């Protein structure tokens, strides 16, 4: 039995297989619409995330399966003090696979240790969010036709932004990927990512606080939100939240075939005037997230 806790749980071959299956489902969704009949997905969401939860539920429903679960810790047995280990042991007898979001880092790892069904990490604190990474990768692969030889700009909260960490970890495994890391000083990527991943793998990267300067070099611009819930101090959040805002004037520096991605939800870091630019693909990206989750569910249930 396999789980998906970190993007690195998948080998490059497994990753490529899931992305290809996702692309195949995208072309012919009808073919896969009954493949999970009789199967149930449990969505265990200890913190609210409408988007990710609905994406998982849509994926399972599209495959002909059923869904059950809870959408906040208040409405679960966690409010009564039940441990993650006990919850997952019970859920294992109700469902065939589960997706877990938890505000504490490592909670899905604990779940996987005690679970009898595959566990998918749907986001644990500021740590990992592997299905967002799969979504980002399938979007890049579908639009660019490749995952190697790409310059990826990442902008915003690179310190707490788990989607950024996961995407870097996944993309360094492909050849000739370069990163331009744009953030205020306080929100730079964590030290371990710089030393143990980028430096250790000898990846070409730049850390800067000037988006416009590097805009013409980018194939992909991955924008992120400065997340209020990751700060212990409200003052720091308010000071940093508007650090980088992508608007039409900045977009004019970009290549014609550059794409803007965002894990969503967006607050104000991408001005709505950018939405009509054909290079803004974040809503398309959300749609691709459903296809790649369909592929992942099939893979973990060994129905592929």
């Amino acid at each position, binding site marked *: 039995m396999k789980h998906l806790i970190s993007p690195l749980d998948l080998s490059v071959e497994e990753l490529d297989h899931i992305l290809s299956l996702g692309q195949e489902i995208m072309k012919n969704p009808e073919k896969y619409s009954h493949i999970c009949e009789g199967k149930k997905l449990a969505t265990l969401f200890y913190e609210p995330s409408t988007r990710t939860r609905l994406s998982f539920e849509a994926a399972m429903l599209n495959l002909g399966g059923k869904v059950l679960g809870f959408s906040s810790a208040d409405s679960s047995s966690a409010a009564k003090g039940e441990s*993650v280990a006990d919850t997952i042991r019970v859920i294992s007898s109700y469902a065939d696979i589960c997706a877990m979001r*938890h505000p*504490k*880092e*490592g909670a899905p790892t*604990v779940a996987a240790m005690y679970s009898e069904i595959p566990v998918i990490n749907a986001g*644990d604190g500021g740590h990992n969010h592997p299905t967002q990474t799969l979504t980002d990768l399938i979007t890049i692969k579908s639009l660019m036709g490749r995952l190697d030889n790409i310059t990826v700009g990442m902008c915003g909260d690179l310190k707490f932004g788990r989607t950024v960490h996961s995407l870097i970890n996944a993309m360094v495994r492909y050849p000739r990927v370069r990163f331009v890391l744009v953030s205020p000083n306080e929100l730079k990527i964590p030290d371990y990512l710089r030393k143990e991943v980028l430096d250790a793998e000898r990846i070409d990267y730049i850390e800067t606080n000037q988006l416009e300067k590097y805009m013409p070099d980018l194939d992909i611009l991955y924008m992120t939100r400065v997340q209020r819930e990751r700060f212990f101090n409200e003052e720091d959040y308010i000071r940093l939240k508007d650090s980088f805002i992508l608007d039409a004037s900045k977009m004019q520096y970009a290549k014609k075939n550059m794409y803007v991605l965002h894990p969503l939800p967006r607050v104000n870091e991408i001005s709505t005037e950018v939405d009509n630019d054909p290079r803004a693909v974040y809503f398309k990206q959300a749609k691709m997230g459903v296809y790649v989750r369909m592929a992942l569910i099939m893979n973990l249930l060994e129905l592929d």
Partner: protein
Amino acid sequence: MLNIGVLKEGVVIDHIQVGGAMKIYEYLNLEKLDCSVAIIKNARSNKMGKKDIIKIEGPFDIDLNVLGVLDHKITINIIKDNEIVEKRILSLPEKVTNIIKCKNPRCITTIEQDLPHTFRLTDRENRIYRCIYCESKFKGN
């Protein structure tokens, strides 16, 4: 140097960085031992200037390799019949449980008290351990 008395049989944990002896006392749960334990703080050392030492009397059955996680300069002397019979070199264990605690306030271990605090060695050269849950780093002295 202050003379604590000759150890006939037991263990001497030597070359502990100054101020580290109490931590090691706590990590090894030495308060639970029934035998004599001496903590010597700020002892003179040719190599280190000053150092801490712990002397434990009698047969002693605790995995001392965990000390390598905390302080790699520590040396262990095993004493029998008033003689040093073994100078043990500490090796880093692949995994340690309930020796060090995860200090990440966002880690699942902060709200689930029954979870064992387990760390895995991820970088032997730099002696870096990471929490198996949240992957936060622990680095000893």
